[in-house]
């Protein structure tokens, strides 16, 4: 189970996809953060 999951190697593809997804989401969150802070001033 846990070993076979990693043996085929392609789980890295999923991790890459999930990391890109979160990188974009965080990028957007940071953008909103800056925008709201600017408005606040």
């Amino acid at each position: 189970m846990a070993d076979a999951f990693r043996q085929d190697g392609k789980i890295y593809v999923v991790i890459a996809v999930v990391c890109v997804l979160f990188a974009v989401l965080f990028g957007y969150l940071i953008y909103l953060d800056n925008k709201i802070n600017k408005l606040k001033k």
Partner: protein
Amino acid sequence: MLKLSWWKWLCIVLIFYTLIEGFLGPVPALPILNETIRNLYFHVTMWFAMMILMTVSLVYSIKYLSKPLAHNDTVAEMSAKVGMLFGIIGILTGMIWAKNTWGAYWVNDAKLNGAAAALLVYTAYFILRNAIEDETKRARISSVYAIFAFTLMMVFIMVLPRMTDSLHPGNGGNPGFSTYDLDANMRKVFYPAVLGFTLLGIWIMQLKINIKKLQHFNDEQ
């Protein structure tokens, strides 16, 4: 872009650590659960984050009652809203997990029904808020209700499931988080994951608070 507070960077680092270690880290090989045990990092953490955010809401509601500042009420409202968001994600992710391990999206389990009831209690909190026009009245009444809602949530998801049989670990005699059953390798991902998702919730909460203050400022102009 680099002017972010340290805890926001910590949040980003912890979530990426969770994503990478959550998929790659060693997990115990258990029957039925198989690889779905990794959902511990993504499903259970939602409920932990929700409970921490609801605790923030409780604390600020009590703070409002002892010191009626609009800020205290706004924090109480927004933390409950973000907590609710995590609760909904918790229910949805739990349903997928339940379908694949227990056999159905919804089983008649004390913890599931309790979680649904707890979300309804908080839905009533938001409805109550919208129903009162007067700002100070709204803040005072909803602060009192928030204390009641928190107590009910704790009874529904922490107390009642432990008093009957439940499919959830840690309830009704099933093993849970005690020292001997949560794998040491999983702890190394689970606790940072809880902190990471909680910080993400606090981050969104802070943005919502600022938006509300801006709106308020705008209305006054």
